[in-house]
């Protein structure tokens, strides 16, 4: 091969890899977008984000949300009961927006987002001791590290693990 055609081929290869690499970065940045940033129903924000982060409805399948809404007086150790009209309103909104996150077909154990296979895989680099830090406290406390969790943004590039 001549020098010219060799360098052209090399440039073409570099171009291809560059484009591919660029695409990867774009896809990686889209992780936050894949949580399907459905605007949160104001009532959901008001009633369901007083004690914990407003979990995106897409992160659990319908069956999980239904079980949660039917058992509010026994909500993971506390009484989170609401009047019947509010339960109905929230349930139908959750139903309509459930399961849009990737690989969320199967209900996780105890309907806990943090026990989902995808969650465990995504956080497998986080050591056990981090979850126990007082500044974090629990894997369900998304906002400790995902500072934009309340806006439904979980982009790994924005993660700040507190001490």
């Amino acid at each position, binding site marked *: 091969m001549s020098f010219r055609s060799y360098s052209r081929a090399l440039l073409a290869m570099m171009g291809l890899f560059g484009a591919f690499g660029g695409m990867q970065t774009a896809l990686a940045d889209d992780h936050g977008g894949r949580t399907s940033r459905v605007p949160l129903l104001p009532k959901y924000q008001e009633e369901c984000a*007083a004690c914990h*982060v407003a979990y995106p409805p897409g992160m659990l399948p319908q069956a999980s949300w239904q079980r949660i809404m039917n058992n509010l007086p026994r909500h*993971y150790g*506390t*009484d*989170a*009961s609401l009047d019947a009209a509010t339960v109905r309103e929230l349930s139908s909104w959750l139903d309509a927006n459930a399961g849009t996150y990737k690989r969320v077909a199967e209900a996780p154990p105890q309907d806990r987002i943090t026990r989902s296979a995808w969650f465990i895989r995504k956080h497998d680099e986080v050591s056990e001791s981090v979850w126990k830090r007082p500044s974090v406290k*629990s894997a369900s*406390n998304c906002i400790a590290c995902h500072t934009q969790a309340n806006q439904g943004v979980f982009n790994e590039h924005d993660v700040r693990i507190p001490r």
Partner: protein
Amino acid sequence: MKFFFLNLFFPALLAVLGLASATLTPVVQAATPAELLSGYTAQAASPAVPSRGQQFFTSRHGREWSCSSCHGMVPTQAGKHAATGKSITPLAPAFNPERFTNSAKTEKWFRRNCNDVVGRECSAAEKADILSWLLTLKP
């Protein structure tokens, strides 16, 4: 004349009253902490005792949590949910003007949190004691 009243006036009156009651409902729920307190003391048929309220609030009642577990021993600063770590705005009205200004909201949280802390609904006297103590907390 009959036609006027039956077909026009009364339906219009009903519509106006219906609209008025729909818009007034949130206003009916709105209250001041002092109004809510007098409601509870009236129900309890006895005066509120702030020191008893402080005692109730900061003690455990045979279960894992006290009110203070989330709201703090002196709820004039942000508290923290004992399980989730979520920040909770101050409970004392002098430090948070939104507190105890909506009767439905107040009743909802008393119902749930007393169930968690005490295992039952709080009595009107207990609610009065707690609120009267919270109102003594000033900057």
